[in-house]
């Protein structure tokens, strides 16, 4: 190899034809799957990368970094790191030193000021980094995925701090995978998919579309694959789809919106009392529910077609799910044809804990105090 042979590069066009506007004082969210080009976009805005083509214009001072804790050195103390990171953020050393107490107070790290960063937990280091960032004077802040900072109470503080910055009229660009924070924080959002702006508008719409794309690949399409029993079988599942109450074929449903399964069965030979059933699983394969097979009272002659319809209540938490289905005959469980999976679908909505939201009620009753307890309090 020639000593001057450069390392070979493959050209990756990270962004194409991206165009959007952010108004002054707006809190804009940028959503998109990993590798979709979100970070490249921030790097172009921050002058870390140079755009091959196109025009970017910015009014006002832009924070020069896109990630928290840039320049942190684990062999230095919090004090020295705040100075380094602050200067990286565009502060003068004097400003960085002057704001040090505020930064440490916000990060709740007063006891660890002279400790080297390598002895910090990662959560503590992130808290420090976030605290430096919010002290920045920049008009426009760009933040790449930070809301996973620290524990729940600190996350709450971060949210409040974003509100404060937003209230001061700063413009904030936030890259996030958390659709909850997108909806609760942002005024405006864009969705980037494969380097193009897929959607530009209301954060709620962007969040829904993001979940749809992210959970099912390119949009929600009922899976076409069929493991079926093949040519010699007595019958087949000719068609299978999901639809809503209006009869629209869909791959995504809102939480609590009932789902209609439709299967068209075609007999090739005589089938005695065919039964059709389906089973619902989570994306990671955990079986959630299986409907008892629905029998047909009589038998089918070759060429007969039957449509089975099932209406399923949807208490499912937002996420992606799989439906498998099976046709059997003989009034029993002799499988004739099956599809595994028959369809994938998405449930949209506010994230919830768990997989299924059950109906529940509370009854809370306070017990009267006994005299023994009163005595114990004295």
């Amino acid at each position, binding site marked *: 190899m020639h000593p001057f042979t450069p390392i070979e590069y493959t050209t990756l066009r990270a962004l194409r034809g991206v165009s959007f506007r952010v108004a002054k004082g707006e809190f804009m969210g940028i959503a998109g799957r990993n590798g979709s080009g979100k970070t490249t976009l921030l790097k172009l805005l921050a002058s*870390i990368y140079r755009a091959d083509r196109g025009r970017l214009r910015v009014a006002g001072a832009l924070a020069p970094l*896109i990630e928290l804790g840039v320049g942190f050195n684990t062999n230095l103390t919090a004090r*020295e790191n705040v*100075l380094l990171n602050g200067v990286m953020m565009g502060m003068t050393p004097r400003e960085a030193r002057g704001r040090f107490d505020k930064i440490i107070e916000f990060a709740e790290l007063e006891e660890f000021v002279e400790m080297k960063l390598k002895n910090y937990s990662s959560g503590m280091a992130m808290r420090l980094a976030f605290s430096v960032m919010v002290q920045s004077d920049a008009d426009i802040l760009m933040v790449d995925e930070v809301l996973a900072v620290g524990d729940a109470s600190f996350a709450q503080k971060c949210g409040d701090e974003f509100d404060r910055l937003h209230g001061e009229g700063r413009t904030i660009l936030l890259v996030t995978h958390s659709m909850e924070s997108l909806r609760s924080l942002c005024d405006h959002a864009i969705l980037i998919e494969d380097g193009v702006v897929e959607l530009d508008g209301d954060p709620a719409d962007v969040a829904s579309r993001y979940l749809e794309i992210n959970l099912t690949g390119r949009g929600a399409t009922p899976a076409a694959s069929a493991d079926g029993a093949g040519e010699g079988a007595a019958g087949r599942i000719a068609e299978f789809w999901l639809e809503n109450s209006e009869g629209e074929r869909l791959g995504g449903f809102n939480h609590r919106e009932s789902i209609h399964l439709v299967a068209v069965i075609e007999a090739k030979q005589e089938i005695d009392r065919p039964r059709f059933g389906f089973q619902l699983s989570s994306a990671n394969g955990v079986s959630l529910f299986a409907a008892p097979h629905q029998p047909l009272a009589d038998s089918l002659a070759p060429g007969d077609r039957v449509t089975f319809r099932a209406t399923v209540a949807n208490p499912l938490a937002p996420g992606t799910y799989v439906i498998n289905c099976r046709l059997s005959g003989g009034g029993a469980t002799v499988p004739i044809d099956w599809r595994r999976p028959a369809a994938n679908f998405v449930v949209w909505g506010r994230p919830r804990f768990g997989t299924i939201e059950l109906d529940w009620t509370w009854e809370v009753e306070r017990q009267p105090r006994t005299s023994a307890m009163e005595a114990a309090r004295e």
Partner: protein
Amino acid sequence: MTAAGQPAALQPVRGPSALGGGARRFFTLTWLLSVTEFKLNYFGTIFGYLWSLVLPLVRFAVLYAVFTRIIRFDTPNYAQLLLLNLTLYSLFNEATTRAVRSVVGNENIVRKTQFPRIVIPLSVVITALLNLGLNLIAVLVFLTVTGVGPNVTWLALPLIVVGLAVFTTGVSLLVSALFVRFRDVAQMWGLMVLVLFYASAVLYPVEFIPPGMRFLLFVNPLIPLLEEARRLVVDPSAPSVVDAAGSVFGIIAPAIVVIVVCAIGLWTFVRAAPRVAEEL
């Protein structure tokens, strides 16, 4: 922060560059990075500063033994000359060697922050200069103790250091920019500093260079720099660069080399800077 109510004008985003981004931020960052690195060198280990003296002293002791006991140089004040030369050459050696990998090594800041890219190799040179400052103090103390000087001409030593720093900076810019795309530069530069060490009259006085190799005096600016330092600090009666080279080109040619190297270094770095973050 721009004043509220007075909207800032839309400015095109210029993209990354070697020098752009405001003079104050440039100087602040260069100084801060240099001092941080310097501090980490000395406070990272238990003996800190002592370690930074041990290695050069051992090297000096070995070379001194070789060239006075085995190969018998009878140059006056050879010990003092050798120590001074080693110390000055170490600036060039240390700075350029570290500079090669500096831009790539600082990937975490290059890929995540906008700042003038030239800050990185410059801060490497400045850190090496801070080290040199400390080491020179030790050298001058040694010279005084051993009866060479002090002398008024020592006050001109900073001029030599400036010349050395300029040449070192030019080379550092060149190698640090090239390394981003051509990783072989690290190995090649390792060989180059080794060759230059022997080709720079560090171990031997300039008079030892045979007539057949006098061309070195014209192409290697380190020789005249070290020779002038020798005359200022150790031995005023040593031949000047012009005497040693036999003509005034002994000073002009190396000066041109320095200017050309700096120009190529700067040009290469400025050209590479906008793409550096993508090519790491």
